[in-house]
């Protein structure tokens, strides 16, 4: 025992180096598995404040771009107004003098929470956004994030007033996507090369695809509502060794100029996750 202490005493620097190095590796590997950083809430609060202050300056310079995005989005929404579509009226309506009860009972599934982007990176292999909206304002882990032109990412970490979003431009990001025209589903990844192009995998060669086809979020995703724009196909890579296409997708979202996004809350998320994570008993 005494010798051990003597050894540590003599090689104190080396031992402390090894200990700290191991600590780093543990933090790194733990974070990659769960996306929960050590002391993340406190650190998030601090870095978020710095981000928020600087973002106030940045926003000023991109007002023009924000205006353009908003007017484009407005035009798109107006375009899909009910009043724009006329159905020839051939139905008859029965009026009864009582209160009607909605027997279908529609209920809300998705809530949209607007948030300001206060931090955004695109230059590294693992890119994140910081939003100025946190746990107190209703953001939870696992919620999806939608920009004015297309989807942006998924919330991975929440502190009291800020939240961290794993951008689509992250080497570990994976989003379920489908082709708008025939609903064939695949998965969206990023290869780390160019921030304006994503990769769509697992589209079978039987499906008839063309350049310019629109890719949207699929029905299978728990956090994203379906049919949100992701991008358009720009290149079809035909690998003869597999039965699947690898497609290059131009992102709908312009990640260079994100200022305001919507965090989407799926009210049934917890229920769906609970069901999907229960282990199925096999026949024994």
């Amino acid at each position, binding site marked *: 025992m005494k010798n051990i202490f003597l050894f540590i005493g003599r090689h104190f620097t080396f031992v402390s180096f090894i200990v700290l190095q191991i600590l780093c590796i543990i933090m790194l590997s733990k974070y990659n598995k769960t996306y929960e950083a050590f002391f993340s809430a406190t650190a998030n609060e601090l870095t978020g404040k710095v981000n928020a202050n600087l973002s106030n300056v940045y926003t000023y310079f991109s007002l023009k771009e924000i205006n353009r995005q908003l007017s484009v989005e407005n035009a798109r929404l107006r375009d899909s107004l009910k009043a724009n579509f006329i159905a020839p009226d051939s139905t008859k309506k029965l009026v009864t003098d009582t209160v009607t009860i909605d027997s279908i009972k529609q209920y809300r599934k998705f809530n949209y929470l607007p948030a300001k982007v206060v931090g955004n990176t*695109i230059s590294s*292999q693992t890119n994140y956004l910081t939003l100025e909206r946190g746990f107190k304002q209703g953001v939870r882990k696992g919620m999806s994030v939608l920009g004015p032109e297309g989807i942006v990412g998924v919330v991975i970490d929440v502190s009291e007033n800020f939240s*961290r979003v794993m951008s689509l431009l992250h080497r570990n990001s994976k989003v379920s996507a489908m082709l708008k025209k025939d609903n064939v589903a695949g998965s969206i990844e990023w290869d780390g090369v160019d*921030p304006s192009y994503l990769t769509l995998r697992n589209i079978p060669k039987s499906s008839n695809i063309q350049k310019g086809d629109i890719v949207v979020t699929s029905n299978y995703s728990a956090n994203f509502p379906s049919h949100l724009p992701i991008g358009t196909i720009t290149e079809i890579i035909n690998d003869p060794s597999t039965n699947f296409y690898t497609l290059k997708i131009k992102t709908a979202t312009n990640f260079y100029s994100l200022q305001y996004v919507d965090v989407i809350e799926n009210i049934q998320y917890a229920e769906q996750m609970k069901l999907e994570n229960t282990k199925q008993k096999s026949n024994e």
Partner: protein
Amino acid sequence: MSSIVKNSFRFVFFILIQRYVLNEIPPLHQFVTPYLYFLFILWLPFSINRFLLLLIAFLFGLTLDYFTQTPGLHAAPCLLIAYIRPYLLNLLIPQETTEQSYIEPSFKSMGGAPYSLYVFLLTFIHHFYLVLIEWLQFGDFIFFIGKVAATTAISLLLIFVTEMLFFRKAKFKTNAAYL
């Protein structure tokens, strides 16, 4: 200005420059990421205690990690260069002259060639380890080789420019200099 005040100022300055200027630059290529922040560790004084040096490097790397949300990724290479630094300095500078008369490593205090070698080696080791960790998570061998070469070149260029822009007066440690 006292050494502690100066280095605390540098700590904050390098973190902010790295996160809000260099990381905001639109990427030219997948391999090109400008890194400058570790120059803080290269500029720490000669006389600093080895354990303290490790601790400062660890905290410094971790601070940047919390800004970029990658806990451990920058702290690990910072620790490594902080550990190697004293050994390298012992090899490169004439004993018992420089270390006693100058405060921190610079062109003037160490001489042009030894200082350049010191910067080049530590920059290379830092990037080698940093990209190695990244490579273990994703990427292929060409990514590894290409990124180490490209980032080292970019960093050396940045360090050269920084040395030119912020010319540090090589201060003498002994009283003789003030006479």
